[in-house]
């Protein structure tokens, strides 16, 4: 598939993840067939189909959100408010943004990579990713509350509350990026 990026030098598409996912599918499918036989494979595939019908529209929306955010988020603002000089404010912005940004990993991880390229400090970006992982409000309200009930879901959230803050601080303290601002390579 050819990318039609104007102006930018043609970027070689990264096929590694797709090849990995395909191998995983073939491998796990074969194992399932050996262990349980064809009927189970067919049954799993029917369930997968339902899952896909569920996930693909969300993913399409997520991809749109990523595109819109990329053009809307101002680079200068990110560098100033989430950069090295921003201190705790950068971490807090990352945590709040991570908790409220809707969408799956296909939205959040590209945004994280984008923030890093725009000049955000790596601790703030890790706090953003962690916050999405453990405090994501969309998943909490839609999935956790409905499957676990309010009490259990709230308890889960409480145990996870310190994680984004602590991990952001730990990254900043123990594993900062040597080179900053980061050189835009792709």
């Amino acid at each position, binding site marked *: 598939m050819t990318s039609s990026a104007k102006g930018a030098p043609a970027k070689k598409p990264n096929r590694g993840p*797709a090849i990995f996912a395909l191998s995983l599918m073939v491998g796990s499918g074969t194992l399932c067939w050996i262990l349980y036989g064809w009927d189970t494979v067919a049954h799993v595939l029917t369930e*997968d189909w339902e899952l896909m019908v569920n996930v693909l529209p969300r993913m399409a929306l997520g*991809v749109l959100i*990523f595109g*819109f955010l990329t*053009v809307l988020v101002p680079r200068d603002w990110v560098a100033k408010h989430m950069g090295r000089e921003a201190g705790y404010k950068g971490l807090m912005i990352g945590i709040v943004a991570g908790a409220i940004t809707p969408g799956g990993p296909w939205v959040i991880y590209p945004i994280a990579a984008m923030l890093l390229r725009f000049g955000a400090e790596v601790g703030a970006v*890790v706090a953003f990713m962690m916050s999405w992982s453990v405090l994501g409000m969309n998943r909490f309200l839609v999935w956790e509350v409905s499957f676990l009930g309010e009490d259990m879901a709230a308890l889960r959230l409480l145990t996870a509350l310190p994680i984004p803050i602590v991990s952001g601080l730990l990254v900043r303290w123990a594993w900062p990026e040597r080179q900053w601002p980061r050189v835009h390579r792709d």
Partner: protein
Amino acid sequence: MILVGAVLLLGLAVLLHPERRLSEALGISRRQAIFLVPVIIPAIISAGFVAQILPSEEIGRWVGPESGFTGAMIAAAFGALMPTGPMLILPVVAALLSADAGVAQMLALLNAWMMMNVQRLVLYDIPLAGVSLTARRFTFGMLLTPVAALLGLAMVG
């Protein structure tokens, strides 16, 4: 529904932005989609197979309310190895809870699944966020999983 709202709001914001064009944003989205589709579809299919292969019931016996910190760590390891995607893990956790798994142990499972899920790591973290961010996130995810588990054990009592 939250997603639809976000798309509409952000799309409107791009339209109204004086210096940005919608076609620019849609181009970025299109390239992202071309990259994602061949990853996501096999990933979803594999998730179903992996869930089928994992011995959920046997694991349930290891993580009862009396299993303490060890049980929480077993549950956390299970959470790390579970397929990614809330539509797969939450039904499993709900089933384990009704099969007498411990509450604190299930909290550890969910937190570990969120912080250090291996499938998400290979399928999404590395390709989409890059190695530098992934390495940091995963390292501290591993370190903080026991901390969150202890907090859960303290809260549930």
